[in-house]
């Protein structure tokens, strides 16, 4: 194999590949990227056995072929090369080396045989559809914070992507929860997605996927089977196993009878929560919300370190209520609100509280209160 490629193009293609590669590996070849050159294209393939990324870029291919080298090392080398450089990659099969040359720099990297590289088996996808990048971006971005890290409940370690019925018809829905808070985000159902099986997309996949979704104009080809999910653009394909488990029935968890309504400026609220939580030294910082006629008092009382209080003007017309929350949870859900006021719906100080943006029910958050 021998190719020449522009440094910027190569760096972009490699950056996605090297981020999938696990830093600590027991199987040496998993640290490598598989480079395949054919026609006028070169592809870079990396995997951790759960996720596989294939990145394609145009290149001048002098000699077609394939080999594997350390993904991180190749990425580092290319990153450090001067901008605009033309990089040549030449494989010496006999020596088991890949020679990288750019200007006056020459590098030799050890290769491993391409035959040893594990290529993810192609699945039969039950459903194929196309969705605009911003739609998918919103679904995953708003749900992501609630993903559980608790390994005993492995089926919560991802975003549950499935088809459901929203207020105005069928929706593509993303749900994540860790048992303390829950996010339920809806998007209009893309054409052809109706038959999609529900899948739990693992956290790492959600993070890797994010880079695909940055381009507002991009259309993402989504393929879903019971065991795998694939997101593809013309240059990048990300295939991932899904979590083999049953996502719990989240509908029971979302309160429907909460009537005490608080409306507050989300940014102002978040800043106030952040300020009062400063005095608490405990890891789970509890903030008390005391609600009275159009008045919200946020307070923290940490016996060892001190106390703090802040008052906010809000819209609240129900009975007096005192309820506690983990400050981190409040901050995270408040930061999901970006257009309108945050609307909280409470029941009692022991029941789950619902939060949404204005009257928009396409993004709903539930948070469990804390005893204070």
């Amino acid at each position: 194999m021998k190719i020449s490629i522009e440094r910027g193009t190569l760096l972009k293609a490699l950056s996605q590949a090297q981020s999938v590669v696990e830093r600590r590996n027991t199987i040496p070849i998993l640290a490598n990227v598989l480079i395949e050159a054919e026609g006028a294209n070169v592809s870079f393939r990396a995997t951790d056995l759960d996720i596989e990324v294939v990145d394609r870029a145009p290149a001048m291919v002098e000699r077609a072929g394939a080999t594997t080298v350390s993904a991180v090392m190749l990425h580092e080398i290319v990153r450090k090369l001067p901008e605009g450089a033309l990089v040549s990659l030449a494989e010496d099969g006999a020596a088991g080396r890949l020679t990288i040359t750019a200007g006056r720099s020459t590098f030799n990297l050890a290769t491993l045989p391409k035959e040893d590289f594990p290529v993810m088996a192609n699945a039969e996808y039950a459903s194929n559809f196309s969705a605009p990048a911003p739609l998918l971006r919103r679904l995953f971005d708003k749900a992501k914070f609630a993903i559980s890290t608790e390994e005993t409940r492995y089926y919560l370690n991802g975003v549950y992507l499935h088809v459901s019925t929203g207020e105005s018809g069928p929706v593509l829905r993303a749900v994540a929860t860790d048992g303390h808070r829950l996010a339920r985000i809806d998007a209009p159902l893309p054409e052809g997605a109706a038959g999609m099986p529900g899948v739990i997309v693992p956290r790492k996949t959600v993070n890797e996927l994010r880079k695909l979704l940055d381009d507002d104009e991009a259309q993402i080809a989504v393929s879903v089977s019971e065991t795998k999910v694939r997101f593809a653009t013309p240059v990048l394909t990300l295939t991932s196993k899904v979590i083999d488990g049953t996502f719990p029935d989240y509908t029971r968890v979302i309160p429907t009878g909460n009537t005490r309504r608080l409306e507050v400026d989300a940014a102002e609220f978040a800043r106030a929560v952040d300020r009062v939580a400063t005095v608490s030294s405990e890891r789970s910082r509890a903030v008390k919300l005391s609600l009275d006629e159009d008045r919200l008092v946020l307070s923290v009382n940490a016996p060892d370190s001190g106390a703090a209080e802040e008052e906010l003007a809000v819209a609240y017309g129900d009975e007096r209520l005192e309820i506690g929350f983990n400050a981190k949870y409040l901050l995270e859900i408040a930061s999901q609100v970006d257009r309108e006021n945050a609307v909280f719906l409470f029941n009692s100080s022991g029941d789950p509280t619902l939060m949404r943006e204005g009257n928009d029910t396409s993004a709903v958050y539930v948070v469990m209160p804390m005893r204070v």
Partner: protein
Amino acid sequence: MQALCRDCLTRFDSATPKGGRCPACHSPRILSHPELEGLSIAHMDCDAFYASVEKRDNPALRDQPVIVGGGTRGVVSTCCYIARISGVRSAMPMFQALKLCPKAVVVKPRMAVYAEVSRAIRAMMEDLTPAIEPLSLDEAFLDLTGTARLHGAPPAAMLAGLVARMEAELGITGSVGLSHNKFLAKIASDLDKPRGFSVIGRAETEAFLARQPVRIIWGVGTATQTALEQAGIRGISDLLRWDRRDLSARFGQMGDRLWHLARGQDNRRVQRDEAVKSISKETTFDTDTTDRDLLDGHLWRLAEQVADRAKAKDMAGRTVTLKLKRGDFSGLTRRHALDSPTQTADRIYREARALLDACREPGPFRLIGVGISDLGPGSAADSTGDLLDPDAGKRQAAERATDAIRARFGRDAIIKGRSLR
């Protein structure tokens, strides 16, 4: 030479280093040592503590060999000095102890009573110094440096007063070791048991140690002893011949420690009892078992005991640990970090149960244990409910109600059926 009467605490100048009587009360229990007033690190160890408490509470046992320990699989916790004559020792299997001393009276340990006596002793120690490092219920290091002016008496006199007071008020005797560091104080307390008081001064340290075997060093067990023997080291005098680097090279950190200890150098401070790091309970079965139901029953009882302890101390843990010991004594532990701290039996049990379920080992097991660690204040415990387990809140409320009933009517007033298994 400085001398002290251990009975009436009179201090005087003794002409003879050994022997003689107190000029005030004519007691023969005289302590005299050239450095008597200059030493301030002490180790106090009660004499056959559990057995002494049993004898105190049941005078009929006074002249009989008494072994405290329990169960058919049990080992000797403590034995009185009469039983020791027959060769019975602590940690000896019960059947072996009874073979050596068939007439021994075996008493089940009453930990609550011992803890009570221990607290009383601790209170007496607090009158001497705040720098107390308890090693167990019946022994502790005390640092009396700088207390002589406050008490108007040297540490030796205060310590003699402490053991005299323990004997008079609690009916428990103890032995004291007084020296210039913890290592030597601990050795000293063992030199003259029971009812002893030994002093190791700076001047005599090296000569004294050179006569001792290496096993006298705290932390040198059978394994280290064997390793040392292979290197030709039996006595501390052998250690003194080794170069410091060679010892470190051969025995690692332990080597460096041995080098210092062999010279009587130990700069560890007497540390007030450290904060509790974990709370755990374990139980050994009468016969090894593979029965998961039985394990489960134990798991619940242990979780309940751990929770009781955590609640009593107002603490909560973020990590739950399951411990199992196989028939061949090898152990395995599994732990799980929680996203919020807990002190309830319900959660501790559920987490431990999940760990047990995930453990593919069939057994048989001889021991099971449950613990919590990564402790924090109890106020933060179980404060956030679980959306996906709405019953958790009810179970916790039930547990709080159960606790309240027990606090009023006793431990067995209300129990879970599960704990009968």
